[in-house]
C-alpha cells in the first residue's frame, strides 16, 4: 500500500514541486543581469524540466525501447529544425 501511495501521490507531488521551483527560478533569473548567459541558463532550466517530465511522468527509464524512441523523436526533430534554420541564419 505504501508503495502504491508513493507511486500515486508522493512521487508526482514531489516532481510537481520541483517543476514549480524550476519555474520560479526561470522567472527570477530573467531579472538577474547575466548578459548572454541568461539565455543559456533559461534553456538549461527548461531542459531540466523536460527531463523531469520524461523520467517521472513518462517513465522513460522503465519503459520499452520503442517508447524511448518515441520520446526521442521530439528532440531529434527539434535538432533537425535548428540545423536547417542555421543553414539560413549562419550563412546570411
Amino acid at each position, binding site marked *: 500500500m505504501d508503495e502504491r501511495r508513493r507511486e500515486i501521490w508522493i512521487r508526482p507531488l514531489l516532481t510537481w514541486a520541483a517543476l514549480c521551483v524550476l519555474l520560479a527560478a526561470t522567472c527570477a533569473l530573467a531579472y538577474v543581469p547575466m548578459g548572454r548567459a541568461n539565455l543559456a541558463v533559461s534553456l538549461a532550466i527548461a531542459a531540466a524540466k523536460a527531463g523531469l517530465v520524461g523520467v517521472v511522468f513518462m517513465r522513460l527509464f522503465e519503459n520499452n525501447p*520503442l517508447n524511448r524512441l518515441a520520446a526521442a523523436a521530439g528532440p531529434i*526533430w527539434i535538432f533537425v529544425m535548428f540545423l536547417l*534554420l542555421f*543553414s*539560413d541564419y549562419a*550563412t546570411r
Partner: protein
Amino acid sequence: MSDVAHPAAPDHPATPGSAVPPDYLHDGHTLRSWLFTTDHKRIAILFALSITLFFFIGAIAISVVRLELVTPAGDLVSDDTYNKMFTLHGIVMVWFFLIPSIPATFGNFLLPLMIGAKDLAFPRINVLSWYLYVAGALLTVVTIIAGGVDTGWTFYVPYSTMFSNTAVLTAAMGVFVNGFSSVLTGVNFIATTHVLRAPGMTWFRLPLFVWAMYATSLVMVLATPVLAMTLLLIVVERWFDLPVFDASRGGDPLLFQHLFWFYSHPAVYIMVLPAMGVASELIACFARRRLFGYSFMVYALVAIAVIGFFVWGHHMFVSGQSPYANVVFSFLSFMVAVPSAIKVFNWTATLYRGSIGFDAPMLYAFGFLGLFTIGGLTGLFLATVPIDIHVTDTYFVVAHFHYIMVGGTVSAFFGALHFWWPKITGRLYPETLARIAAVLMFFGFNLTFFPQFVMGYLGMPRRYHVYPPEFQIYHVLSTSGAALLGVAYVMPLFYLIWSFRWGARAGANPWRAKGLEWQAPSPPPRDNFLTPPVVGEPYDYHPPEGPTAAEEQVA
C-alpha cells in the same frame, strides 16, 4: 453498364430481438447517442458531416473570388472583401477540410476495421478530437461574424502582427485549437496501429492505407505543435506587444516563415499521404492485382513523411533567406521527389496485366494519379531556385498546390467515399451518375487550374483582384471550370443522400476486395466483426506467380 456495382443481398438482417447486434447506424437513435458516442465509426460520420459543411463554406468564399476575377476591374466586391474571401477559403479548406478530410473520416472509420480491431486505442480521446475540431471551427465562424480576416491563410508577419485590423486573433486561435484535434487523432492512430492489430496482422501485412495513416500521424504529432507555438507567438505579439517577429525591436519576421513552413510543408503530406493510401487500395482492387512493390510502397510512404520535414525552405527562396540555404533546401526538395516517383511508377506497374474495372472509385483513382503527377512535377519546377524566383507569388504556384491538394487529395477523397460507401451505409450508389461526376470533376478541375499555370508563368500575380486585361481569357476559363467543378462536387451530395435512403442493399463485399474491413457486415456493428477476421497476405488478388485475372478470363 449496370447502374449498380455488384448488387448483393443484405448480409446483416438485424432486427430488434435477434441475436445479431444492430449495425452502428441503428445502435441508438438519439442525438445524445451520437454526440457522446465513442464508436470510431460514428465519430467518423460526425467528422464527415462537419468537414462537408466547412467544405461548402470554403467553396462559397472562393466562388466570390472566381466571380470577381471574371473581369479585370474590381467590380463585384471591394479589395478588402476580396482579401477576406481568399483568406477564408484558404483557412477553411486547409485546416477545416483538407487536414482532417481523409484521416478523420475514412481513417477513423477504417483503421480499426482494416487491422481487425474493435475500436481505436483511445475511444474517448477520439471523440474529444471531434469536439476540439468543433471548437476550432466555431472560432472560425466567430471570425467570419467579426468581419473576417485578410492576412491570407499563411498569417505572414509583420502584416498579421502589426498592420491588419481584422479578426486575426480568433482566426489564429481557431487554427490553434484545431491543431490539438490533429495531434489527438495522430496519437490515437499510432497507438492503435501498434497495439490493436489482430493476430497475424504483421507490419508488412498492413494495408497501404493503414501505413499511410501511420505516416500521416507521425507528421501530425511532430509538426502540429510547431504551428501551435507559432500562432501563439502571433497572439503574444498582437496582445502583449512582445516583439518576437518585429525587426525594428530585435525580432525576426523570417523566423515566422521558418516556423510556419516547418509545419505547413509537412502539412501538405498530411493531406496527400492519406490520398496515396486510398489510391493504393483502389488501384489494387480495380486492377485485380497485387500491389506492385508493396515493401517499397511502405518505405516510400515513410520516406516522404520524414524527408517532407527537411524541405520547408523552398517556400522562402525570395524571402531574404541566404543563398546557401536556398541551395540546401532546393536539393532536399528534389530528394522528396524520389519516393513520390516510386509510388507513381508502382501504381502504374500494378495496372500492368490487370483486369481493370472502370467503376467510379477507379475513375477517381485515375484522376488522382494524373493530377498528382502533374502537381508533383510542377513542384520540381518550384524547387528549382531560378524558376521559383520567376513564378513566386504567381498563379503558377496556386495551380501547383491545387493540383496536389485538390486534384490529388480531393479526387482520392471522392474515390474513397464511393469505394467505402457500401461499407459505411450498407447501400450501393448509382454507378452511372457516379461515373459522370468523376469524369466531370476531372475535366472541371483541369479547366479551372491548367489556365492558371499559363497565366502564372506569364506573370499574373496571385491575390490581386484587379489585373491587366490580357489575363482575362485565362480567368474566364478558370471560372468556367470552377462552375463545372462545383456541379461535380454537388452531384454526389444528391445521389449519395438518395442512395442512403433508397439505394440497393450492399453485401459485405460488393467489390470483392481483400481487406479485413470487407469481412465485416455492411454497415458494421458496434464491435465491427461478428466473427474474428481471417488475416491473409495483403492485396491477394491473384496468386504470386500464377496467371493474372485477365489471363484467367481468357482461359
